[in-house]
């Protein structure tokens, strides 16, 4: 009595493809506008470098365009092909068919993946033709595009399928998909932002850990294109293949979940019992995030670190807890499909969560473990970079590192004083130790003694040199532009400006015999508040350096001070002043 259509239903596959033809057409149109169309419009573009530009364009469309198009299109495709299982009537009709659950899932899954692949092939053919016949370039970039978008399709549609398998509500599919794509990074960002606000000196990248488990971010960062030969047009294959594998595994997990799914959950937000508490907690976290955003916008006007004020901390906790409660009860409403969710049990749960959250935040704020005061040992520090409004410096010498540590401790000791006043300066310390980097970032009040200490450190000879000299040893030819601008005032106060453009050898000579000795002797390159001009003559030297190894360029302006005797002598010798 076995049906011939038990594990795959061609009729359902065909019907699913046919029903959503406009969606597939839109996908095809987007790729047509991104790939063959620009190649056709550039047919007349036949200069010698055009081939390279076209290869570069196809690869960039594959890796960047592919991530954007597939990450946006996949949830739409999942909503279309699996939407039938998200309403009681259609789910009952589909599940009464003589097709196994695997057959239902695979027929719908392959309708989406198959059609997307077919559309990719339709785009590939004209692209290949245009590349080979008209632009006379290798077919490799077009084939690589096909491979990349196929792998991206497997990755993102797999995630979208998994999103569907957890929910019975069609509108929840993109929400769960977004959560799977950006949930970890969003939660981490929330934690980092709260730590910024409550822990004095806390500083970290916004997403120090979770970018690797966030597909869109990871693929955008790790998959790239370059010019280096056919074999290396696209880099990051491991990430691509890895996420495609994750997509396939999630598709398999989705299939297993769908097999066990109770069809009465069609239209429910959480299709699987175990996800209900997870959904409530995630809704509470979203609510907490919303409360924190409201706090930043309305209390801090966007300035994060003001949160350190005790009064603001209370407001932040109140808003976050309110957001948490609102999120939790909204989640409960969506799960139970009723507004009557305000039970004593619910309030007790929310109270417990809010209490745990407040306790954690207050604990970080009060810092009983002394984490705020914890700094690297001087002996372990290889170098330290200090940054403030006034400028920056990088210090390697032992005695200078000790001065920086002393400043850092002083900033922490003055925490309470530094939190007063409306006008602030910021000081950031980046310590490079044998075990990695430690970053501390502080706001200090305008009248804090730490400001003067900072300026003194920024004007140490080593600081001046590190700030004003390139990181590599400058040789003849490494200075690619050099402009000397002279401002003079005549007796009537009228300003006269003259401009001299030095060639590379002159520039190197000026650097070697003028600027470099002055920087080493501490005659110029101080932070701005040390700058002194006689009011009659001032000279600015603009230099652009090019690192011969990396090709990186750096542009530095040297205001010439009266103390810069070597530079002034060179300028006088050259007849410029």
């Amino acid at each position, binding site marked *: *009595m076995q049906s011939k*259509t038990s594990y795959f239903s061609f*009729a359902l596959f065909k019907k699913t493809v046919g029903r959503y033809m406009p969606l597939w057409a839109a996908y095809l149109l987007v790729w047509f506008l991104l790939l063959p169309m620009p190649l056709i419009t550039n047919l007349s573009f036949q200069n010698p470098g055009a081939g390279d530009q076209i290869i570069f364009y196809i690869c960039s469309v594959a890796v960047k365009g592919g991530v954007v198009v597939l990450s946006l299109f996949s949830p739409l495709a999942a909503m279309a092909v699996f939407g039938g299982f998200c309403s009681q*009537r259609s789910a*009952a009709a589909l599940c009464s*068919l003589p097709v196994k659950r695997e057959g239902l899932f695979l027929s719908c899954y392959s309708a989406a993946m198959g059609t997307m692949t077919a559309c990719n092939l339709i785009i590939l053919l004209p692209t290949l033709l245009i590349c080979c016949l008209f632009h006379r370039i290798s077919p490799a970039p077009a084939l690589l595009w096909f491979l990349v978008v196929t792998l991206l399709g497997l990755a993102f549609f797999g995630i979208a399928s998994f999103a569907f398998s957890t929910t019975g509500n069609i509108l929840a599919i993109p929400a769960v998909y977004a959560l799977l794509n950006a949930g970890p990074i969003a939660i981490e960002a929330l934690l980092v932002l709260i730590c910024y606000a409550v822990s004095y000196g806390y500083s970290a990248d916004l997403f120090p850990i979770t970018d690797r488990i966030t597909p869109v971010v990871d693929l955008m960062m790790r998959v790239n294109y370059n010019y280096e030969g056919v074999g290396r047009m696209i880099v990051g294959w491991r990430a691509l293949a890895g996420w495609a594998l994750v997509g396939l595994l999630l598709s398999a997990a989705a299939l297993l979940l769908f097999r066990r799914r109770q*069809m009465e959950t069609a239209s429910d937000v959480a299709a699987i019992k175990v996800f209900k508490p997870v959904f409530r907690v995630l809704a509470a976290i979203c609510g907490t995030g919303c409360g924190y955003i409201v706090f930043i916008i309305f209390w801090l006007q966007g300035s994060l670190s003001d949160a350190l004020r005790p009064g603001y901390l209370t407001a932040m906790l109140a808003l976050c807890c309110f957001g948490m409660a609102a999120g939790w009860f909204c989640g409960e409403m969506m799960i139970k499909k009723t507004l009557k969710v305000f039970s004593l049990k619910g309030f007790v749960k929310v109270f417990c969560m809010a209490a745990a959250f407040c306790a954690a935040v207050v604990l970080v704020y009060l810092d009983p473990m002394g984490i705020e005061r914890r700094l690297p040992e001087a002996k372990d520090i290889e170098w330290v970079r200090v940054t403030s409004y006034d400028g920056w410096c990088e210090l390697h010498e032992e005695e200078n590192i000790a001065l920086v540590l002393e400043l850092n401790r002083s900033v922490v000791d003055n925490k309470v004083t530094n939190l007063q006043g409306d006008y602030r300066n910021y000081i950031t310390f980046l310590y490079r130790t044998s075990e990695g980097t430690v970053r501390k970032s502080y706001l200090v009040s305008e009248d804090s003694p730490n400001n003067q200490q900072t300026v003194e450190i920024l004007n140490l000879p080593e600081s001046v040199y590190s700030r004003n000299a390139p990181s590599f040893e400058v040789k003849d030819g490494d200075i690619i532009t050099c402009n000397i601008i002279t401002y003079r005032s005549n007796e009537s106060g009228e300003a006269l400006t003259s401009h001299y453009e030095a060639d590379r050898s002159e520039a190197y000579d000026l650097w070697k015999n003028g600027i470099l000795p002055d920087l080493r002797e501490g005659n110029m390159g101080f932070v701005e508040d040390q700058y002194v001009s006689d009011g009659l003559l001032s000279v600015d030297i603009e230099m652009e350096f090019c690192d011969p190894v990396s090709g990186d360029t750096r542009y530095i302006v040297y205001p010439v001070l009266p103390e810069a005797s070597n530079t002034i002598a060179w300028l006088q010798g050259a007849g410029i002043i």
Partner: protein
Amino acid sequence: MISMTDVVKSFDGFRALDGLNMDVPDGSVYGLVGPNGAGKSTALRHITGVLRQDSGSVQVLGQEVFENPGVKSCIACIPDEVYFFPSASGREMKNFYKGIYPGFSEQRYQRLGEALQVDDRLPMRKLSRGMQKQVAFRIALSLMPKLLVLDEPVDGLDPVMRRQIMSLVMEDVLERGLTVVISSHNLRELEDVCDHVGIMNHGRVILERSLSDLQDNIAKVLVAMPQGQLLPQGLEILHESSTGRLRTLIVRGDREAIAERLAAAGPQFMDIVPLTLEEIFIYELGGADYAVKDIVL
């Protein structure tokens, strides 16, 4: 044909089916009746393999029906609200089902088209509810099922079309031995077509018999006793009402035995009439705490 044993199904803690037992004989027309929320539609969704029971067994043709494509290919179902793919025409729906059900008969489909004259080229969304039902019946009967499951099947159909469709169904029952399970609140119509009846309440079948057994086992008695004379002891009276000295009794038991016992008490007037299915439904549920006791017939 269908055997449901101790079937339990809960939705978020609510027991929609609470130890349901139901047996539908081969070739029978089984009417499933019950008040709103009794669990009829849930039971039908188990029979069609849409829902999986928490415990118990749901067998059709001697096999578990859930995830059994072989059994499901022998079942056709027309739910209360018929589902069609949006913008699909009747013909497209027919082609879809034809691709899935191996027993689909094109010949039968064409022949049914003569009886049910709805243009199958029209998009389903443009058809009235009754016309959609006609298309659904045309497709369902063309699947050549062994079991036809109908949930409120004639809602939206005009009286002529109701008779037409039910006669087509009965034709299949007679010619092919089709088994039909019908859930409906229209008990007068069920009475015309059903040979077996199951009454559901609170997720259980509280009464399941052939219609003739059911009607033989309960009687409506009109009786007028002499002044001061009481009714004889031992009658299982489900309901009693009176107008003057004339009493109307609904009595469970063999009709002849009831007549003999009452006659022995020497009534001034006595008449025994059979109950309609609707009356049986109401009085049986009256005994099951269903609030119909004050309904005057």
